[in-house]
């Protein structure tokens, strides 16, 4: 049977790399006594596919994976068994059975929503923040430099920022941002913070904290979660 699982990556698990996560998922299923299907070939590996890789250090409320099992299980039993097998870094949120193998999660997901805690070095007024966000968002382009395999390259991130909201909480700005993610292009939340910092005269302290609120399939008509499509 093929299932799609929504899970959280908690504070305890946020330093897992994608490779660590892969290993961990395989162990979770084995502990749960849920036999995963394996690929054919010289070096068989379990049939799991992930949504969008989460960078090390980031927590998340909604990550997704598709997994194929060799046997059928009722969903509530699946849930029960997984709940006892997960380590503290991972929490199972929701499970849905997929009837047929659809397009992969990576091909479908194209938007991520983040909450970012930006530590300020200087005090700021709510009106200043509002103006800053407005000013940043009316720019037609914003170029960032990324380190790629072939050296540095320039990328315009502005078109991939769909939404940017912020409020103040003591000496933090709390941002909520919707950005492009997936195979068409990936915008990192740090880059959005960088855009704000360069647009205004923001002085920041160290200790940026990023939390992913969700991954979505953004179409013209609506924004849906991978469990809704």
């Amino acid at each position: 049977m093929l299932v799609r699982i929504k899970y959280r990556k908690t504070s305890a698990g946020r330093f897992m790399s994608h490779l660590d996560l892969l290993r961990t998922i395989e162990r979770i299923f084995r502990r749960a006594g849920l036999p995963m299907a394996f690929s054919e070939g010289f070096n068989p590996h379990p049939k799991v596919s992930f949504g969008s890789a989460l960078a090390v250090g980031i927590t998340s409320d909604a990550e997704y994976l598709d997994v194929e099992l060799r046997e059928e299980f009722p969903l509530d039993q699946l849930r029960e068994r997984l709940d006892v097998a997960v380590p503290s870094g991972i929490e199972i949120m929701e499970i849905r059975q997929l009837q047929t193998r659809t397009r992969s999660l990576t091909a479908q997901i194209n938007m991520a929503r983040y909450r970012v805690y930006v530590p300020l070095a200087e005090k700021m007024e709510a009106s200043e923040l509002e103006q800053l966000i407005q000013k940043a968002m009316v720019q037609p382009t914003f170029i960032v430099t990324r380190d790629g395999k072939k050296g540095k390259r320039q990328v315009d991130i502005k078109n991939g920022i769909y939404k940017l909201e912020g409020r103040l909480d003591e000496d933090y700005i709390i941002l909520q941002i919707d950005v492009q993610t997936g195979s068409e292009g990936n915008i990192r939340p740090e880059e959005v913070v960088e855009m704000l910092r360069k647009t205004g005269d923001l002085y920041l302290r160290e200790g940026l904290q990023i939390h992913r609120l969700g991954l979505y399939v953004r179409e013209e008509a609506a924004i849906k979660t991978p469990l809704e499509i």
Partner: protein
Amino acid sequence: MKDLKSILENEILSRVNKPLRYVGTEYNSVKKEWNKVKLRTLFAFPDLYEIGMSHLGLRILYHLVNEQPQYLMERVFSPWTDMEQALRERDIPLFSLESYRPIAEFDCIGITLQYEMSYTNILNMLDLGKIPLKANERKNEYPLIMGGGPCAYNPEPLADFFDFFVLGEGEEVILEVFETISSHREKHNGRQDKKILLKELAAIKGVYVPSFYKPIYVDGVLIEVQPTKPDVPRRVVKRVVQDLDKAYFPLKPLVPYTEVVHDRIMLEVLRGCTRGCRFCQAGMIYRPVRERSSEVLERQAKELIKATGYNEISLTSLSTSDHSNIKPLLKSMLDKYEQDRIGISLPSLRVDAFSLELAKEVQRVRKTGLTFAPEAGTQRLRDVINKGVTEENLMEVTTAAFEAGWTQIKLYFMIGLPTETFLDLDGIVDLAYKVLHNGMRILREGGRTRQAKITISVSSFVPKANTPFQWEKQDTLEQLKEKQRYIKEKIKDRRINYNYHEAELSILEAVFARGDRRLNELLLKAWEKGCKFDSWSEHFRYNLWLEAFQELNMEPQELANISEEFDRKLPWEHLNMGVTKAYLWQEREKAYQTVATEDCRYQSCTTCGICQDLGVSMVLERK
């Protein structure tokens, strides 16, 4: 000040390499309430997380102690240099993984002594934990520092820094130690009075309190290490588990998130080895051989898979193919777990056809490399070291391996062994070529396209305490380097890959392996100069060690060697690991006469002393 946990989580962990090294939230990790236990202990591994977490002993003791409701045990490893820098910059003390607590807050810290070249890391950890290094500088408010593990059989180079050592197999004695400490604390209003407590600890069999003993030197020669208190034993005897089936074994072991060196289930199939290789310390100090029964092993394997989710079981021991029922056991496990893609691995293989059959079985699920250890290049030298392997054995096993599909084989050798000549080095080179050419022929005749490849890994002999070769002279640094070069020049074929270790490290290892209490000063000085992570080539600074030697008027070459007279007291002679000095000496004499000693499992008893003196006996499953 913000609490340590939030500073670490928000400001430090995200800036260091591999932060999971410092986060104790792994599956099956145990977090207990600090105020609800009688004794808070810490297991310290003086190396990186990835190394320490690959150590079975840690898991055994960690889970054994944590299964007792009245104690807790947390973990700490050596922080890598980036983390150390972050801690020192912000003046944050070294902390435990489970509760992010400064290590100085624990009641007792057990430091495992697995290899000599981790000693500088011990001092560095104590210093990072803001704990005074020397035992006599630590007042009652500091944790007791306990040492154990193979190097505890000669702990004299560390005697100043530890309050006590535990000799032998930890699971046999650790609860007695903790019971003594915790009832002492109960009697003393929750505090410790070290003077009294150490006496109480010294009364436990297997516990060695170095401050209760004094080495007596006459004209620079060690006469004896004498007790200075009336009630302590003249010789401290190690502790041994008699029945491995009944011994504690963790069935819900830690499962790291991040990859560690041995990232699999470690199932201990037997303990001890009586093959009797004369250079091998493990072969002497872990006697007698005790097998765990197939029935228990099968049950443990099943539970371990369920509790960990690992996809590989390593059947560990010093020589796994020696288990009486290894073949049926291996077959049964493979049959059971093959469909779940759970593989079995054998970490150590004898050089014989039987072992290769086992290796072939294993390939059903997972392909693995093949490594054999002839140890020496000629039959004469193999007989000297009592490595019961012939060239025919090696050719037979490698032929079968190439025929079965392997194309790469790794061979372990040693240089600098007693009585070695350049003929023996030629022997290493010849063997490597012989195996390679044989492999090339087999692959060619089989019409296979891949090339045969041989790796020879050559280490330098380090005479270790408690072995028949404990009296041997070690080669000088120049001799070892010349031998390494000699082999290098003879290996021209690029299909033979030649590895060797830094000879400087082997010299230092010998210094500490056979050292006495004078080395405490040297160790301290080397650490003060910045030595740490000595076993990591990127951190090993031999020039700093040399400076330390010079400033103390010590000579490495001299310290690396001891007297070759039987009657001279050895620095560790007041510690009894079971095999007698007389037996070791007799084995040494037989080495020089090139006489073999048989394995007592298959021949009569060799009266090494272990079963006679320690009241234990060999346990074999075969009927």
